């Protein structure tokens, strides 16, 4: 009799262990439609352009939020390594047909050397040892470090956009700081970009750029960017800064979907701030445009990071306007 009672319990225990084991593994990132056999990662679904900045940003977000990128990490690293070495510079690449096979060729210079190099270094640093062992990792890091150091402005403590664009951008410098955190660099960012009179961040060090700007992009989006990288000097703290931003810009942000890119990065910030109402509203508005012309690889990764919506309808009492 005892043997018959023990059997079902053993089965249940095994089933429980199996389920808990499955949940302990990271969910794998799925970039079907954004990659090809060469390891390239495109900006848009079935796109014909590779901009390493966006792929690195997306992979970085996936890594830090627990998604398994192992299927893409090594092929992508090799792809960037090859193109970086060929040109001596990370560029932007367009697809062309050579001998009836698609290839990627340099077609545009990058417009953000500082961010791209910083994200590349961060990506290399976070690779598991098994992947790093398959790359000339020291040479890659040394090269990128050298190129990024050339952009440093010792007078301001900030980084220029590129060797030819000799001014500094707020969001770019935040990304460089997230890859190379240092207290002195953080203080430089805060002192050069924070406007204490208007209580907002400047978008650029260019005197000619209108300040304060009145537009969602780039002016409003710049204000929430520090929360994306956990910048420590946000006046009043991250929570109150986030609340203030949402009071001023939430409806404008949620209205982006359908005509503009949906700014999934802001949905990610909302999730990290525990604002599930805004997350659900974003999912309701943005997910119908998934993989469309107005959807980027960063939005795709954010959609996979966020908890799946139980339905696409928000709670009845939520206001998504």
């Amino acid at each position, binding site marked *: 009799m005892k043997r018959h009672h023990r059997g079902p319990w053993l089965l249940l225990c095994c089933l429980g262990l199996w389920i808990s084991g499955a949940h302990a593994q990271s969910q794998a990132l799925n970039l079907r439609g954004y990659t090809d056999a060469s390891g390239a990662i495109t900006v848009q679904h079935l796109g014909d352009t590779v901009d390493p900045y966006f792929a690195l940003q997306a992979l970085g977000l996936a890594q830090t939020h627990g998604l398994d990128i192992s299927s893409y990490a090594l092929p992508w690293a090799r792809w960037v390594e090859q193109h970086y070495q060929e040109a001596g510079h990370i560029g932007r690449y367009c697809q062309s047909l050579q001998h009836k096979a698609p290839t990627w060729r340099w077609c545009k210079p990058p417009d*953000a050397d500082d*961010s791209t190099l910083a994200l590349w270094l961060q990506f290399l640093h976070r690779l598991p040892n098994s992947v790093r062992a398959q790359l000339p990792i020291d040479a890659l890091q040394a090269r990128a470090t050298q190129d990024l150091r050339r952009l440093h402005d010792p007078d301001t403590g900030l980084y220029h956009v590129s060797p030819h664009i000799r001014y500094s*951008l707020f969001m770019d410098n935040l990304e460089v700081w997230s890859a190379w955190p240092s207290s002195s660099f953080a203080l430089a960012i805060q002192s050069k970009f924070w406007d204490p009179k208007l209580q907002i961040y400047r978008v650029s060090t260019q005197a000619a*750029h209108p300040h304060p700007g009145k537009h969602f992009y780039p002016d409003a989006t710049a204000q929430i960017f520090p929360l994306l990288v956990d910048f420590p000097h946000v006046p009043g703290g991250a929570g109150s800064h986030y609340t203030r931003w949402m009071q001023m810009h939430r409806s404008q942000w949620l209205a982006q979907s359908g005509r*503009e*890119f949906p700014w999934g990065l802001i949905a990610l910030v909302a999730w990290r701030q525990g604002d599930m109402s805004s997350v659900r509203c974003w999912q309701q508005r943005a997910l119908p445009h998934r993989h469309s*012309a107005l959807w980027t690889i960063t939005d795709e990764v954010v959609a996979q990071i966020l908890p799946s919506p139980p339905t696409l309808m928000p709670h009845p009492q939520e206001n998504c306007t």
Partner: protein
Amino acid sequence: MNLTHELNTLLFVFVTLNLLIWPFYPAWREWRHPSDAAALTWLPASKLAAIEASNLPSGAVPAWTPRPSMVLARLPNAQPWGMRGSRIEGDCHLPSGSYWPGSLVITGSLFCGAHSVVEGDVKVYGDVHMSPGSALLGAAFASALVLEEEASVQGPVVVDGAVKLGSGASIGSPDTPTSLRAKQLTRSDSAHVHGHVWLPENRAGA
């Protein structure tokens, strides 16, 4: 002998005239069909007034993006059109921060989001509205054109109706002057036009 002398004289005159006249042929051809790099004068232009660029403030064309721009592979409702071009039935909205690497033919109106860039030319049956910081690197043909602050068009620009230039907006550049033709031009004091401007008389204002 007289015949020989006459023939020699005739030959001498013929050769001399050719040596004197033919060096002027390129100048004559240019005068008849100008093809140099400067802005061309439309003929006939009886109802249009030419405003020389020297009468308008000059300045550099601002060209920067506050974030990496998003190179678009496709646009909603777009069909391939010519080489690296697309045709869109109805209106077209370019997202802020995007980069369109080709030309556009649009049967409706074109709205360029902030800091968006169109690499080619646009032919728009309706209006073109360019948000702050947006840039069109080619020619524009439209019913009306609005450039908000810091927006720019490389040119040439041909507009059936009105052109409105906001603060810091520009058409053309000091290195590449162009031409603008419109029925009416309204501009901020800090807006720049480089090249020839053709308007009905008394239709330029700030």
